[in-house]
């Protein structure tokens, strides 16, 4: 988000081990698929016992785990597997559909010259991925800012993150209408 300061951004790149993990996106892909399977099974059960605890637990879990590895900004609509396991909300311009035209010749960010461009890294990592590599070419809809600081996992299981804006007409439909 726009509140991100320079030191925070720089820090995002320096958490021990996190860079190594992100540079091995195939491992993260397996972790993603595994977590999805397990959490999908656990979620209805947990939700029946205590919805408020489940919510708190999931948010805490995401803040700690994804926060450490990806410098997660808690947008509440995670698309990490579609962006080369690199969090697009770390881009100072919050771009969701690829790099801007301001990338430096050395591949660093226009806004923070010491930081590698999030999208240059995302592209390189996506090329190393198996199942989700080409998802980086998908068109990502606008961010739902109302979901900030909520759990992306819960939003996913409840189908909230994929609920499109009423007027966000698909390209196929647009093309048919012409």
């Amino acid at each position, binding site marked *: 988000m726009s509140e991100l300061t320079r030191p925070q951004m720089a820090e995002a790149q320096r958490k021990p081990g996190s860079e190594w993990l992100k540079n091995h996106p195939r491992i993260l892909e397996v972790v993603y698929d595994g977590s999805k399977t397990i959490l999908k099974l656990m979620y209805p059960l947990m939700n029946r016992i205590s919805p408020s605890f489940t919510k708190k637990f999931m948010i805490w879990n995401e803040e700690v785990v994804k926060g450490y590895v990806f410098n997660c900004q808690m947008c509440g609509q995670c698309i990490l597997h579609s962006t080369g396991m690199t969090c697009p909300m770390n881009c100072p311009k919050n771009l969701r559909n690829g790099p801007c035209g301001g990338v430096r010749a050395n591949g660093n960010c226009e806004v923070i010259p010491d930081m590698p461009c999030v999208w240059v890294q995302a592209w390189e990592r996506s090329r190393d991925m198996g199942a989700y590599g080409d998802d980086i070419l998908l068109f990502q809809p606008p961010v739902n800012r109302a979901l900030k600081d909520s759990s992306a996992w819960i939003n996913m299981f409840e189908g909230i993150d994929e609920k499109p804006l*009423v007027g966000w007409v698909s390209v196929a439909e647009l093309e048919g209408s012409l």
Partner: protein
Amino acid sequence: MSSKNGLFDLADVTKVPTQFNHAPVTASDRPLRSNSRLERVLRSGRFAVTSEIHAPDSADPADLYKNALVLSEVCDGINATDGSGAHCHMSSLACSTLMLNAGYEPIFQMGCRDRNRIAMQGDLLGAAALGVKNVLCLTGDDVTAGDQPEAKRVFDFDCMHLLRTARIMRDRGIFLSGRELESAPKFFLGAASNPFVPPFDWRALRLAKKIEAGADFIQTQYCYDIPRFEKFMQQVQEQGLHEKVFILVGVGPLRSAKGALFMRNNVPGVWIPDEVIERLEQAPKGKAAEEGKKICIEIIQQVREMVGVHGVHIMAYRQEKTVAEIVERSGLLSRRSRDQLNGRSRRVSAPAEAVAV
């Protein structure tokens, strides 16, 4: 020089070499979007020339008109920049409207830095109501590039979202909330592309995404690296993108080697190869600006021959007269009679100066 008693002499029109740059577009290829002058030029198969106006730091429209007048003589469209380089200037919508009312063809630039989605949809509708027909959707420079880095950056949408929003409003006549418009805007939609910075492999694929989002034409960042651009165009051709979108290549004159180095190091997204800087350095004293113009003309002539290039976008900050000179000297005007387009009689341009490539 050719008009007799103010009437247009047809004999001169026939002397103008007429040549299509690309095959004219038919309605079955692509539907007509807004019928703007720029769209008509591009669809007809002529090589288009656009430029950008430096929005004045002034409340007086005259400061805008004096620059627009110079550019309009040589351009099919004039970009009204939207707080370029994150510096405040007269707003792009105001510049566009003023130019439109004075008879010029504006391209309304809209960036994502200063507006959230509510303001964007409102501005798009307002622009259409004021008569704006060309909209260029950009992400925009970051606030840190300007002289007020303390500002809050918005970036609610990225340029793809903005493009798609404009397209949805145009083609479906609704806001993103689903609320219906009483009258849908008609826009010829543009986007920017920068093939000259990493990740290179992705740039053409990203262009495809922009076309999917709604781009009808593309203006690229400054092109000084022809081999890099050729590689990009090859990828574009492989995917057949040049048949779905009009591509205008960004060009501009460099004034000196020092200026070129400054641009390379300080202006985000501008890539200038060493060979170009060396050429400027080797130019005789006081002739660097002339060499810069020559390089620009050569690049125009080279990209003009490439398949899939439909025009050039000439950018020269505060050098409107230089833009006019470059267009004249590069021989772009002699390819067609602009008078048919403008609907007014105008002198036929002088023969183009041959420049060795």
